[in-house]
């Protein structure tokens, strides 16, 4: 019961991390010009303090965070990512249609991005703050409506396209003082040898010798380059190569669900995040800005191929139907007893027009292609081993139903850079396992807790069983009307509380 109540909060579908190339509208070739700072093929191996494998949102956020801290901004960082867009200057045009890959950024992440200086770039492009959220299900028994003001906040979150986030982080990294080099290639192999003593006394060892004695990790790339590094950070996504090469095992399972994502357009502005739990999975409608919204529809694999292949008009009709009267009636407050029953919980907040159930705005046009991909849960057993640390999806992938995924990743980046900074303050070798385990001890409990909560939610909603439906509806009802509970739920989903309130 606790978990169900606690998760009502973030029940929006947000963050989708798909391993592919974003925002390259034109097929550009890999740039290796000198001013891009990329090494030529086959050049001599160089040594770095930190090699970030994976130049995605979380990897670049880590680089920005290191650049923003006084103790770490002198570090020499290499970023390994074969995405050609990382070598280019600008890849977003203002009048581009919104990309269907978006993330919902919680207020905690917004303040992190502001701290590292990347948020101001985001604000120059399309982004959408939202302060209202409505969650209901197909049974029509109840609904929950959240307003940021109830938790004394301005916004519940902000929806940003992944390409906007990525380009903001990249611009900021480029401008920062941090010594960095982008290696536009893929990692093929990584070796880290066990510690051993040198038998030579009084001489300074070469990079190769340091590597032989376990003081440096050696990375080999597809284009023939190799580099040495004191610490390797795996920020390369759910199918992390770094994690594989480091021999870190994972636990997890596939959900028998796929998600369809696309961008749609309305006739009116949308400032609210909507999520309806349907029998086979939640359907979420998120505002992106400029009358556009993003749809994330979780369903069985068969349904997903059906919905993906149907005509645009049919699809739009299906979406409107699903958000409206499809699958079940509209919820009203009177089903489970009138709101008078809970009035003594409300603590003085009278129900206003904002509290009433609303039907989401109609979808009139499909603005992007529909994409489908399978969902799974995966968690690395360790986040750190000798000279290796994992952040973001490489460490954990979650169900998108609460939009927490990339926010967990940003939390990882923030924590790892703090730990590295503290280590440097007392002269530690940053690749030492004992230091990296501090990062793991900081992030693992919070991440595992969030994953358990989301997984519980996913399971709670995969069953259509009368009494369970009533229990779920009661939970919704409680979450809607009991204001202290609502406040706590909003705080947890916003990334402010680390553990659920009831613990």
């Amino acid at each position, binding site marked *: 019961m606790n978990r169900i109540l606690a998760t009502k909060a973030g029940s929006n579908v947000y963050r989708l991390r798909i391993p592919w190339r974003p925002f390259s509208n034109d097929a550009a070739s890999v740039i290796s010009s000198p001013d891009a700072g990329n090494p030529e093929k086959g050049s001599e191996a160089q040594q770095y303090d930190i090699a970030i494998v994976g130049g995605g949102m979380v990897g670049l956020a880590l680089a920005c965070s290191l650049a923003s801290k006084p103790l770490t901004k002198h570090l020499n960082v290499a970023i390994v990512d074969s995405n050609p867009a990382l070598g280019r200057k600008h890849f977003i045009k203002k009048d581009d249609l919104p990309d269907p890959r978006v993330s919902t950024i919680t207020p905690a992440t917004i303040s992190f991005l502001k701290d590292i200086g990347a948020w101001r770039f985001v604000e120059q492009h399309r982004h959408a703050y939202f302060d209202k959220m409505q969650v209901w299900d197909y049974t029509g028994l109840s609904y929950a409506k959240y307003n940021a003001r109830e938790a004394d906040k301005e916004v519940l979150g902000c929806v940003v396209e992944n390409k906007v986030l990525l380009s903001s982080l990249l611009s900021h990294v480029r401008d920062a003082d941090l010594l960095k080099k982008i290696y536009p290639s893929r990692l093929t192999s990584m070796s880290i040898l066990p510690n051993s003593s040198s038998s030579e006394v*009084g001489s300074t*060892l070469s990079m190769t010798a340091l590597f032989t004695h376990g*003081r440096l990790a050696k990375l080999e790339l597809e284009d023939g380059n190799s580099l040495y590094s004191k610490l390797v950070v795996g920020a390369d996504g759910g199918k992390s190569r770094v994690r594989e090469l480091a021999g870190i095992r994972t636990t997890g399972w596939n959900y028998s669900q796929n998600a369809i994502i696309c961008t749609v357009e309305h006739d009116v502005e949308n400032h609210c995040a909507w999520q309806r739990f349907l029998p086979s999975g939640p359907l979420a409608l998120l505002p992106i800005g400029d009358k556009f919204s993003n749809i994330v529809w979780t369903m069985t694999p068969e349904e997903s191929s059906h919905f993906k292949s149907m005509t645009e008009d049919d699809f739009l009709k299906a979406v409107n139907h699903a958000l409206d009267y499809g699958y079940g009636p509209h919820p009203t407050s009177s089903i489970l007893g009138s709101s008078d029953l809970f009035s003594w919980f409300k603590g003085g907040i009278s129900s206003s027009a904002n509290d009433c159930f609303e039907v989401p705005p109609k979808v009139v046009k499909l603005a992007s292609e529909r994409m489908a991909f399978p969902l799974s849960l995966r968690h690395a057993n360790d986040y750190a081993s000798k000279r290796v640390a994992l952040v973001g999806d490489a460490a954990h992938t979650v169900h998108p139903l609460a939009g927490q995924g990339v926010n967990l990743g940003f939390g990882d980046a923030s924590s790892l850079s703090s730990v590295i900074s503290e280590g440097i*303050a*007392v002269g530690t*070798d940053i690749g030492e*396992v004992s230091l990296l385990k501090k990062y793991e001890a900081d992030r693992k409990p919070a991440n595992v807790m969030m994953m358990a909560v989301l997984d519980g939610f996913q399971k709670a909603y995969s069953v259509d069983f009368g009494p369970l439906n009533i229990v779920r509806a009661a939970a919704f009802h409680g979450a809607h009307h009991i204001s202290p509970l609502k406040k706590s739920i909003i705080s947890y989903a916003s990334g402010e509380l680390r553990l659920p309130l009831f613990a």
Partner: protein
Amino acid sequence: MASSKLLSQPRWHRFLPRNLSRVRLFSDLPSQRHVSEPQNNGVDPKSNNNTRKASSTPSSLKEPELAKFSAIADTWWDYEGPFKPLHKMNPTRLAFIRSTLVRHFRKDPLSARPFEGLRIIDVGCGGGILSEPLARMGATVTGIDAVEKNIKIARLHANLDPITSNIEYCCTTAEKLVEEQRKFDAVIALEVIEHVANPAEFCKSLSALTAHEGATVVSTINRSLRSYATAIVAAEYLLHWLPKGTHQWSSFLTPEELTMILKRASIDVKEMAGFVFNPITGRWSLSDDISVNFIAFGTKETNEEQG
């Protein structure tokens, strides 16, 4: 561990004032980074390597002791080995040293190499666990230890990183260096003084090594009921963190005693802090609790002559 030590030492601590009102406690200082933990477990993990920095009695270094230390010397840099408690405590000690020395020498607290230009000596360096981080923080480090094997291990390990390969390691004692008239901006002797035969003489040597307006940092274990329960009974007999007989409770110094003998050696103790261990998180942190492990920072008085 037999020690023909300080039983002949005068018990002048009985005549000292009990309070240390002159000494500023760590928590009074503005930039506070560590929170005191409720639990603590006093350990002197470095003791089993350490040697008496013999003062005027070089015969206090016994062959069986040296052999015992040499046997485990190879495990110095094994983070999970017998020196694990010391490795765990190390960042906390360094935090105190960084904070006090940066303030004393007016260095930039946000610099990654704040000790650039400072000559620091690590007395009783063992395998170099303290020396290497100090070198990474920019200092010119000299490490001395009376056990030859420790120095060898320290040199080999330090060569593995270009930054630390410049550390000067010598198998010698503080007294011998005083004879050579060496001077250092900061003299650091952690977990050593409880093993020397004559702490007062040892402090005089430390002071003689400290340059004009320099700093001295000494850490040890308090002689209190609590430290008997934790450092002796718990650490040696219950948890087996240290071999039995590593410490003699009678050779521990109270903060008052340490302050007094440093004062008599022209070192004015300015700050003191304690280390506490949280068994739940397995981490050490700095606190005002000096009842078990404590560390003292003092500066060399240049004007007064002590009798």
